[in-house]
């Protein structure tokens, strides 16, 4: 259990139904099943109404944080998203990306603090698109929504975050994207220091949260770090610091709520293994990394390959085995309609034959 109960002081209104869904630019590449799982869980398992609107665009956050999209432009783009939501008859905006969530929080806050910027945005949007907009009644990250329904999901659970053999709770490292609450602490469940959004799901579904020294440290994804190739050493150093710090606790898996964090914590494990021969998981392999939708999907009994878990860098089979989830190993690399999607070369970080282990320094 999280020792601290003060997360209860950081609450926010999360709508119960009728969501306007804004997708992430990159998640469908890295975790292709996650956004679909979110929609399926909400619509099919929980019976909620959600609009997956093909008309919405990138929030342009990547460009904004890279200094190529000016503030006025991103405000206008955000205003257009809200206008689309208004047009579709929704007022609860939910966004799948942490960067976008930070952007929406920042823009709404800026409009609130400096009303003249909102007026200017209205003018710009009207000029550019002929549109007008109303601000959303509620803004939430999709992990907030999943947190909101954690007990309903627990009630429908097919599997729990428990070792099926020993009955012990699984040890879970939760990693929160920096832009979830570090910019606006009140925007996140539990605030910036002890966010509870993922911990709440883990606890509700039977797992145990690992409190390790570098828990709050950034994964290193920050756009300025990884977009500039020369800075990537800095980027991987952050993930490395976290992995070193969490390894002694022997976590069963990592779960993250940010597109970049989940991707980096997963893929840098491969890079570190190749560079240094170091792996952080059990039996010399990596620590599986899930998104919260994938975690919820496994709990609800979704097929791991339908959730896209075969697209992860670190193999998830050891975790599936621990949870007692049945899966077809032969179907791992079969895509839709049974089409073979290709198989990656084996690597140290995966559950590969040990003869593939090598040290690049040799």
């Amino acid at each position: 259990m999280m020792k601290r109960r003060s997360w209860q002081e950081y609450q926010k209104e999360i709508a119960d139904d009728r969501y306007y869904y804004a997708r992430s630019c990159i998640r469908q590449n890295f975790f292709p099943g996650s956004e679909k799982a979110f929609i399926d869980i909400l619509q099919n398992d929980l019976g909620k109404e959600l609009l997956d609107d093909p008309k919405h665009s990138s929030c342009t956050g990547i460009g904004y944080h890279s200094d190529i999209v000016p503030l006025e432009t991103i405000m206008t783009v955000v205003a257009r998203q809200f206008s689309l939501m208004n047009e579709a008859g929704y007022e609860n905006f939910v966004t799948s990306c942490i960067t976008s969530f930070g952007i929406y929080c920042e823009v709404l806050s800026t409009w609130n603090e400096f009303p003249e910027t909102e007026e200017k945005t209205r003018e710009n949007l009207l000029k550019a698109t002929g549109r007008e907009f109303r601000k959303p009644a509620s803004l939430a990250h999709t992990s907030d929504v999943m947190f909101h329904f954690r007990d309903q999901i627990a009630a429908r659970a097919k599997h729990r975050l428990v070792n099926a053999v020993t009955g012990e709770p699984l040890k879970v490292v939760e990693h929160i994207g920096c832009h979830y609450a570090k910019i606006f602490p009140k925007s996140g469940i539990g605030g910036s220091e002890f966010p509870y959004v993922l911990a709440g799901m883990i606890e509700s579904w039977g797992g145990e949260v690992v409190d390790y020294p570098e828990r709050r440290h950034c994964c290193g994804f920050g756009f300025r770090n990884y977009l500039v190739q020369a800075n990537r050493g800095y980027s991987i150093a952050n993930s490395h610091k976290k992995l070193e710090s969490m390894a002694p606790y022997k976590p069963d898996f990592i779960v993250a709520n940010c597109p970049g964090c989940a991707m980096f914590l997963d893929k840098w494990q491969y890079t570190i293994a190749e560079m240094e021969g170091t792996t952080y998981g059990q039996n010399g392999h990596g620590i599986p990394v899930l998104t919260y939708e994938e975690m919820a999907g496994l709990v609800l009994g979704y097929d791991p390959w339908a959730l896209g878990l075969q697209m992860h860098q670190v193999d998830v089979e050891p975790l599936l085995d621990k949870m007692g989830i049945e899966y077809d190993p032969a179907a791992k690399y079969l895509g839709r309609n049974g089409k073979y999607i290709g198989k990656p070369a084996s690597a140290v970080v995966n559950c590969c034959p040990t003869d593939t282990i090598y040290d690049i320094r040799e």
Partner: protein
Amino acid sequence: MKKRIIVIGGGVAGMQTALRLAEQGVEPVIVEKEPELGGKLRGWHVLFPSFTPAEEVLTALRRRVNESGIEVLTSAEVVGLEPRSVRLADGRELHGDSVVVATGFTLFDASIKEEYGYGIYDNVLTSADLERMFNEGRVARADGTAPRRIAFLHCVGSRDEKVCQQHCSKVCCITGVKQAMEMKKLFPEADVFNFYMDIRMFGPGYEEMYREAQQKYNIHFVRGRISEAAPTIDGRVQIKAEDTLTGRPLRMSVDMLVLLIGMRANDDNARLAEGAGLNRASSGFMAPRDLFLGNVCSNVGGIFYAGAVTAPKSIGETLNEATAAADAAAKYAEA
């Protein structure tokens, strides 16, 4: 007939005010919300810079109050005041010829600085907790073992705009030096680090004590704020800071982290000020009529201030100010 003056608060300031009033031939009545006299000093071990036991000061003050036959109402909370009366929570109303407000301060709640994990991680303490442990005669980590590396962090809840406490609490720097020396006396083998942003040694003997802490006790003073604390797998506390003198980030694990918590405006100030029309400073402390010739007077005639109700103060300063406040209140009452 003797004039009667109501003293709100039975800490060091209130007791000294009442004693001085009694000396002047005025009849004081002390109204204290706690069950006994003594205020915050009750929890303190020894006083800087002389290491005088706090109990010595308290015992002497209480004895004198007792010997002087001063009327004391304990467990009596004041909910409103006017220049000639105060209203208690139980509905009673006390009348007098003037009022001295000696209600002191509120200790900053360290759990508000969430990044230090106070109340979450074992072995993260406040300076007040440490004084209590000194008094109990048992200073140890949560598992009962002796600390081998101890970090003190100055300015927790002071000079910090993020928690709306812009003022300097003044006494925490020297308290940090004092407590570091006490810890070193208890645990000579331990490494002690004090993390500070400025060291403000304003009082007589303080600078000498600070020097002694470094030269004789080998206490390390690091200029830098701790950014966060986190638990380690072996029950220690990992801290991160920047050593701003070397310009390098720093990370270390310590057995004990002591947060030197500041003095903030008394929680009751807003309510009392609103009811009586008293001015408060932006820090929330009561604002004296002026800072030079009327620093124990409020902006309302007949209401006076003594001690830390107007600003953080040391015990010595509080005692002096209480004398001045008593004199001003007595003069007003006699007029």
